[in-house]
């Protein structure tokens, strides 16, 4: 199917938004953490898992989603949330722990929820997979044509919830798409040491569902595979699995010395960087001019600036608010 110029530019803009947002997050994160790294130091405290390098995956998938489709993310979900159409200001404020944050400062970087966007994520590996299955079950029971998408890592594909969820989705023929973000590692453990098959796409057969392996550094490859799977799900034809081969340029979390990565590996993958490559392609194909690209860059940067400013200026939650929201 031909893809419109607007869509192509939107894909580019979204990837860039994720990249620039996260680069800014990293800057702010380290602002309080040098010369001495203390994980609890402000402005952004706690663990920080960045998605830099994997932007094509979230972007290519979420481009097919409506606001009322459901996404279950991971511990590394800024990208998923932004691709789903998330609000940068609220997201940044949440990372700062401010009252104006997505979750009023209660969730934090790993626990982002947006009821309006039907978005959730969490810090327990594999736990979001059944949530997506349940959301898909709800859509089916409600007679809606919505779909649910579950993102998770290559490491997560070895946890029991993966197996149970794919089986449930298959026997109940649910509108859910499983996206494996294979970035070669689970923290320091390479996929080759953790996973008994080459690609998790092969595992789809264990549930009688289609499984494909795509180049996760190529937003168009992801876009096409996801488009097919999501359309299939919307038509009521059941679940699919897509494994996207990609790479995280940063450590598992900020501060990870990454000693487990072999020499030269990152450089190889840098050549496949989804963002400059896609930009070059769009320019080469005449879809984007250098000027337009620069304008997009400036617009996105302005959004990120605004988000940072909003977060910095926002108030802290009152301490006593900690006691609210256990029960509603």
């Amino acid at each position, binding site marked *: 199917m031909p893809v419109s110029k607007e869509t192509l530019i939107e894909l580019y803009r979204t990837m860039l938004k994720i990249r620039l947002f996260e680069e800014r997050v990293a800057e702010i994160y380290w602002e309080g953490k040098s010369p001495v790294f203390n994980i609890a130091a402000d402005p952004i405290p706690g663990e920080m898992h960045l998605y830099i390098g994997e932007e094509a995956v979230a972007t290519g998938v979420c481009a097919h989603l409506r606001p009322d489709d*459901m996404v*279950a993310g991971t511990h590394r979900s800024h990208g998923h949330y932004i691709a789903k159409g998330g609000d940068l200001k609220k997201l940044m404020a949440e990372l700062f722990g401010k009252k104006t*944050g*997505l*979750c*009023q*400062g*209660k*969730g934090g970087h790993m*626990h982002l*929820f*947006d*009821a309006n966007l*039907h978005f*959730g994520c*969490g810090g*327990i590996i594999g*736990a979001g*997979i*059944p*949530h*997506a*299955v*349940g*959301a*898909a*079950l*709800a*859509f089916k*029971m*409600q007679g809606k044509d919505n779909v*649910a998408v579950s993102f998770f890592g290559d490491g997560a594909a070895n946890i*029991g*919830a993966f197996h*149970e*969820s794919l*089986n*449930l989705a298959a*026997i109940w023929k649910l509108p859910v798409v499983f996206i494996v973000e294979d970035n070669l590692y689970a923290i320091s453990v390479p996929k080759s040491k953790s996973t008994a098959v080459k690609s998790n796409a092969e595992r789809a057969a264990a549930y009688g569902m289609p499984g494909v392996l795509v180049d996760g550094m190529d937003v168009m490859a992801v876009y096409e595979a996801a488009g097919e799977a999501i359309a299939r799900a919307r038509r009521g034809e059941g679940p699919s699995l897509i494994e996207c081969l990609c790479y995280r340029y940063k450590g598992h979390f900020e501060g990870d010395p990454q000693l487990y990565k072999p020499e030269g590996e990152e450089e190889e993958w840098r050549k496949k960087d989804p963002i400059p490559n896609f930009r070059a392609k769009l320019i080469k194909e005449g879809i984007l001019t250098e000027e337009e690209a620069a304008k997009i860059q400036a617009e996105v940067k302005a959004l990120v600036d605004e988000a940072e400013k909003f977060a910095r200026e926002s108030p802290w939650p009152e301490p006593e608010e900690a006691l*609210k*929201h*256990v*029960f*509603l």
Partner: protein
Amino acid sequence: MGERIISMYEAIAEAIAQEMERDPRVFVMGEDVGFYGGIFGATTGLWKKFGDERVRDTPISEMGFVGAAVGAALEGMRPIVEVMFVDFTGACFDQILNHMSKIQYMSGGQLKVPVVLMTAIGGGYNDAAQHSQCLYGLFAHLPGLKIVIPSTPYDAKGLMIQAIRDDNPVMYFFHKGLMGLPWMTIIEATWAPVPEEPYTIPFGVADIKREGKDVTIVAVAMMVHRALEAAQKLEKEGISVEVIDLRTLVPLDKEAIINSVKKTHRLLVVDEDYLSYGMSGEIVAIVAENALEYLDAPPKRVAVPDVPIPYSNTLEDFVIPSADRIAQAVRELVG
């Protein structure tokens, strides 16, 4: 009306049926909840009435389907999910510990997780270590879960309807020995009057099953009945026992416990769950914190003595609190 006598399992199934009729968002899932009607009968008749979709048999995939219940709740459904025995919650504990109980809070109150997780508790029929636990004390320790433990058919129905209508996650524990199943040891109280029309019982309101002036016994589920049995015996010995059925551990009716102890000056907590670091300690602590000066004797606890539930008759009878053991503890309290 109030005089229709039914069992606890029928009362639960009726509550669910009435709520399913009232609210199309309510549905049930779990192992053998469909055609079979639930191993302990809690979904009897529902499948026939509502069909495969709303009364959904699942594979043996507790993590998957309890997680799916959470996901469905996030998308506006109101799932009732059965985990056949509380002992099997080990297979889905992460979904309870980190998601069902925490998403409302983590989302800053944006999202509701109106799941009712119902599960069977209790021993006394030689099902041994992996099928006889109570464990409600463990779940009560986790913020974000309402903990419901009925002891009569009447309460079972009213508390189930309340649970389904509650916007928060609820764990609903039914005691196998109290369900009134024809294949279990018959206990009179398991068949009792239950109104046909729907009604609710608010959470956090204990039921004083019997008034007394010498000792307060606090209990839930089967132990309420054992305590009542003990109280009857003790009455003949001139000891007047008040028996409080907490009905919910979260929220907890501290008021009722404290007021009773202020009256009787003596406390016994009876628990079919393990003794240490559980319900019994919490109740004693609350009384010590709030009514210390009223206590005429050190409080006592009768519970499973920190051992797994053994299989053999002689052993199981030794560890699960009996009316005799309860009565003996009361005698020591007043003695």
